[in-house]
């Protein structure tokens, strides 16, 4: 509670204990309290107990009012006005459009994401959306597995058990700043527990991690939570409060003063600018999900954990969320995305990890395909070949082949770019009418199913 201008009525004393009035409202409360105490002492001068009791109550109420309406810590520097919403831009033209987060914020570079483990963190100074930072983030993403130095997340042999039950075990990976990292796995694989562990909500049984540059230790919980945001699968909104009231609560909990512009920008970013006064209970599931996303954006996090953000959304709303995640990527925000939707992971994520209690694989989808499946060409001819052995064995780069239909063949090749011309020449030389020669691509779903099927634990699910 404070005046509309955001000025606090009481402030902590620089010397001594407690608060002192800082505005006319504070002085008015002080005068009223003193006056009331004097009047009561006079009225009850014949009964000292009552008088003293009343004065004690007034004093307690006054201290309480001072604490509630004051509040700058004595050792903290004078309250500087919060920077304007650095990441959250002026209202975009439309939800999820590139303009949504397009204004280049003036903020620290990507390297500020991970201060040394021992240095005190500097909350809300981790924006990574300068052009240089964006380049650095892009380079980090394209360079393959990130190095541990300066990583947004470093997870090392992390394990969580609940009694005899293992939620996840021996999980290790690294996420670069600005990377969109997909976390896939079947139900009960430990995805949400991993997010909760990295979000300091539950303690790991063993192993270590560094989140947003801060070691995952019980004493660092508050500092880590200042630098991250988690959007659970269920957005968990207060349905009796309006959208803005929900966001005001979280702005307050993240210590954001003068949060009005930030809330407006966050709502505009998810295309809910006009729904701020609506009760959350009156919103559809998709709109509630958007409010949850706006809440996650509020604190300008260095690492954003999104747990099934498109769960229950219709295709249009899901696409808008995808656009928003892409915007976050462009702005260099590290996104840790758990999802069941494989096409979503394939479309959005720089790298994916597949978890099934243990980590089955980590890498770019292309790498996973190459590691799991041999590269292949699918050949279709107008009529079955008379002697396919003679045609394919002679072609350069073909390792083996099999028929997949009357006039269809799948060729395992070392390099499709070398093998395709050679196979074409061999088919033409053999007098075959070629209908198509295409590289056979495996989807992320193929990779996922292959990895999960390999896992004996998955058979039980």
């Amino acid at each position, binding site marked *: 509670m404070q005046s509309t201008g955001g000025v606090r009525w009481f402030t902590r004393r620089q010397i001594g204990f407690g608060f002192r009035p800082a505005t006319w409202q504070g002085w008015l409360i002080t005068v009223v309290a003193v006056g009331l105490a004097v009047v009561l002492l006079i009225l009850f001068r014949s009964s000292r107990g009552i008088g*003293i*009791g009343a004065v*004690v109550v007034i004093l307690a109420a006054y201290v309480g009012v001072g604490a509630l309406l004051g509040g700058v810590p004595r050792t903290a520097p004078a309250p500087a006005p919060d920077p304007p919403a650095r990441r959250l831009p002026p209202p975009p033209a439309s939800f999820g459009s590139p303009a949504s987060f397009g204004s280049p914020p003036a903020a620290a570079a990507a390297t500020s994401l991970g201060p040394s483990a021992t240095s005190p963190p500097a909350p809300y100074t981790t924006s990574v959306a300068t052009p240089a930072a964006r380049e650095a983030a892009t380079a980090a993403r394209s360079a393959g597995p990130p190095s541990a130095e300066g990583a947004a997340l470093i997870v090392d042999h992390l394990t969580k058990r609940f009694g005899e039950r293992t939620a996840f075990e021996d999980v290790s990976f690294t996420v670069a700043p600005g990377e969109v990292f997909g976390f896939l796995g079947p139900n009960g694989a430990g995805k949400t527990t991993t997010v909760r562990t990295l979000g300091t909500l*539950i303690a790991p049984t063993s192993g270590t991690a560094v989140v947003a540059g801060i070691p995952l230790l019980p004493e660092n919980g*508050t500092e880590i*939570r200042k630098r991250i945001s988690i959007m659970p699968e269920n957005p968990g909104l207060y349905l009796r409060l309006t959208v803005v009231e929900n966001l005001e609560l979280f702005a307050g909990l993240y*210590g954001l003063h003068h949060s009005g512009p930030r809330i407006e920008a966050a709502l505009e970013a998810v295309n809910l600018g006009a729904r701020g006064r609506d009760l959350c209970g009156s919103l559809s599931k998709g709109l509630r999900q958007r409010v949850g996303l706006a809440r996650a954006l509020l604190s300008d996090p260095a690492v954003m954990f999104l747990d099934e953000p498109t769960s229950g959304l219709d295709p249009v709303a899901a696409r808008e969320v995808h656009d928003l995640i892409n915007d976050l990527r462009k702005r260099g925000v590290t996104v840790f995305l758990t999802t069941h939707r494989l096409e979503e992971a394939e479309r959005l994520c720089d790298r994916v990890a597949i978890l099934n209690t243990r980590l089955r694989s980590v890498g770019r989808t292309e790498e996973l395909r190459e590691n799991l499946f041999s590269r292949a060409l699918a050949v279709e001819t107008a009529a079955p070949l008379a002697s396919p052995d003679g045609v394919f064995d002679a072609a350069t780069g073909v390792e083996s082949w099999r028929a997949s239909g009357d006039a269809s063949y799948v060729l395992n090749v070392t390099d499709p770019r070398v093998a395709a011309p050679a196979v074409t020449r061999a088919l033409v030389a053999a007098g075959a009418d070629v209908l198509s020669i295409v590289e056979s691509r495996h989807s992320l779903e193929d990779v996922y199913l292959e990895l999960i099927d390999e896992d004996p634990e998955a058979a039980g699910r």
Partner: protein
Amino acid sequence: MRLDAGRIRAVVRKEFRALRRNRFIIGTMTVLPIVFLISPMIEIFRLSPGIPEQVVQRLAGSTFLLLLIVPVVVPAAIAAYSVVGEREQGTLEPLLTTPVRREELLLGKAAAAIVPSVAIAYLLFAIVAISAKLFAANPAVTTALLQSSQLVGEILFAPLLAGWSIWVGIAISSRASDVRVAQQLGTLASLPPLGVVVLIDLQVLTPSVGLALAFAAVLLVADLGMWRVVSALFDRERLLTGARATSDRARRAAG
């Protein structure tokens, strides 16, 4: 540990907004005080001038006891809802992902429960005292109600009993899985401190300002102790998963 007043304020403001729109809580806060007001009001108007002073004193004691039940029962209903209610709504996890410390969260919730409870308790006492002064046929009733030990007791006990009730309610709410169970248990568990007031009412203990101050001091210490105990019980992992932390470090520390 430094508590952040801004975060506590944010919790208080949200709690007030949520309370204002919670029909059950508003109903409890409205109906209960009226119920507890009826009996003393009838007694005040019933007493004629010729009634012996001992009877008047007993009436004052009963009124005092009834009025102190309000700051015990009302916050118990609010506090019992505070954690298990959040869990049932699914709002607890997002709340716990923020930088708010558990002590700050609990203080915010407690402050939001204590303010309306104490305000209602003081209002009821004021209504009874003013009614007695203006309308009581027996002037001894006013004197008995406004004697110093009663006044000090009402002024000091109301917030302290409410504080006890709130911490007990939050402790139960942190462990309960159902709002109604939490409210029933919370109300029951918050009653024991009223035992002293009952002893005064039964004249086993002689009411005096000194006794009131001593009991208030004991309640204050108990409230502060309960705050620390409840804060220690308020474990993020247990609240989300129902299991205690089982880290190697925790195990090493334990054994």
